């Protein structure tokens, strides 16, 4: 079985290192790049060619994780991006999906569940979401137009 190539965007060096270890030590995963900010991944994504990007929202660069997601999805529509963050507000959740994220994970997720989510995304399924995150996503989506949600949100997700 081919390894899933994962790129990490995380400003916390300790967590970045940990995630790199985790991916490289787990069977079926390979960390092709770990970047401290959005600019780095944009520069190196052509070279590294990951299948999935694990993206943090709060980044110290000019671009935050959501803007980076938007940028990456515009240039690499087939790329799956999983958001991994500590933020749980509906605005962040909704803008992440609107930008083209395939899933929204919280940082307190145990390592095995994180790996499961990455695999599920790779296989084209939606990663398992916590009920209150899903609730917020749906609730916020309802507040805007359904058309907008289908066009901007669901289509990139099913690719």
């Amino acid at each position, binding site marked *: 079985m081919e390894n899933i190539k994962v790129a990490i965007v*995380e*400003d*916390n060096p*300790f*967590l*970045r*290192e*940990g*995630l790199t*270890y*985790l991916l490289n*030590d*787990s069977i079926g995963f390979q960390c092709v790049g770990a970047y401290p900010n959005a600019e780095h991944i944009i520069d190196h994504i052509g070279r590294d060619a990951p299948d999935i990007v694990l993206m*943090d929202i*709060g980044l110290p660069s000019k671009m935050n994780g959501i803007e980076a997601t938007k940028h990456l999805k515009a240039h690499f529509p087939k790329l799956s991006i999983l958001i991994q963050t*500590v933020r*749980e*507000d*509906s*605005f962040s959740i909704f803008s992440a999906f609107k930008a083209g994220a395939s899933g929204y994970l919280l*940082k*307190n*997720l*145990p*390592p*095995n569940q*994180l790996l499961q989510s990455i695999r599920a995304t790779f296989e084209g399924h939606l990663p398992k979401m916590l*009920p*209150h995150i899903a*609730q*917020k996503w749906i*609730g*916020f989506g*309802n*507040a805007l137009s359904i058309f907008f949600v289908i066009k901007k949100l669901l289509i990139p997700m099913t690719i």
Partner: protein
Amino acid sequence: MAIHKTIELYLRDWLSEKQGYQIIAVIACLFFACVTVLGIQAQMQFSKPLLHPLLHGNIAIIVVSTVFLTTITQYFWLKNKAFWYYSLYLLCNLIYFHYAVFLGSAQTQAIQLKQLRQFPSIIHFIFGYSLMGSFILYTFFVLHFLRIRANYPDFYQRLKSYTQLYLILLGLYTCVVLFVHDESLWLNCFQCLLGCCIPIGAYTLFDCFRTLKGRLSNIFLTGSACYFLLSSIGFLYETAFFYNLLKNNYIQNSVFFIQIGVILEVICFSAGLSYQMQLVGIEKQAMEAALFLQKVQALEFEKAWLKEQQSRLAERKRIMADLHDDVQGTLAGISIFAGIAQMQLQDKESKIATILENIGEKARLMIDTIKQIVRSTSNENERFENIICQMQQYAHDLAANQTIVIDFRLDSDLNALNLGLQRNKEFYLIFKEGVFNVFKYAQATQLKIQLEKKEPNMILTIADNGQGFDKNAVKAGAGLINMKKRAKLLGGQLHIKSQLGAGTTLILHFPLQKKEQTTQNG
């Protein structure tokens, strides 16, 4: 001269201010002018002496009535107590003048007068007391006019004792009048005693005037002097008249002098009141300016305070952001590393595996704890969507160890609510207690939680299909009492419906405040 200027100022006021009371005063003037013309015509027809009380009585009545109307309107206009007492004082004088005019006309018919004297009617009584009342009202007027209590405490004490003495004598006189015949010696004695009060009062006032300073007291002094001097002349004149020392009878009684005194005094005091109002206006302006200055200072202080608060808030935000990003990121790293170490262990059941599991678990727990700390210190916590989030998390966490189906039903527009920190807390704690009770006691397999907004109320329903309880048999515990207390704090009510074997339904019902319903979502 000071008084001249004040009269001029008063006239200028009179002409410049087009207020309602002026119209009333003009109408009153016209009315009394007509009465005067009629009075003069009557005089000429009956060829009475020129200074007959009927005539000068009328003139005095016109002047005093006009000033009375003006002052009483001014009182209702400006709410100055001095005007009130002065107008009442003038009213008493007016009543007395009518009495004097009545006596003057009656004096020509001696028989009628005798009849009047023999019959101490209520009219005599009222008229007599109106004169005495005028003294008391005059004292009150002086107190307010010169603000004696605040400005001249020594004077205030003396005036007080004088008024007390006068009131005691008046009381005794009343007793004598009620029980003694009209023409008895006792009555005359008391009348003399009361008469003595006037020079005593005059002495008190004049003695105290030495301490008074300022234009206001000059005006007052002139007015009072006119009144007391002419009253004294009146009494002297009457005495001389009584002993036939005066041959001409153009001026028939002492009332004439008193009236002239009152007219002079009224003119002085009217000018004084107008001047006082000017002073009040100036004081008011100064006070407004001071208030404005105070407000500006307060505003500046508030601005500085706000700035400080903002910088503190920014600092707090920075610390919170650090906590949020760095610490939580590191904790997530610990969790990941613990996971990696665990995966690399050959023996998954060993003690080290358990320790690693614990480390990972604790790190993840700490992420949640820090999140809660950050939330509780930021405004984010006030947003109702966070409460809903917490509610769902709480219910699902409890359900993790039980086989129970949770049906969470929420109205779509609830996220936009903002109850404020305190009300959020009360609401959440009621929910928490209610759900906890279901998991602890109900042994239910289904739990329905419904939160709906029915303007202007919010309704929370927690219903289970558990074993229920008999409300009469079970005593309300601390939890239930607390819930009811919290419901009361929210301004609402808590109802519990339960039957043995038929589940329990808890309904919280509370009104939303206006500002809570229209908060932006974002």
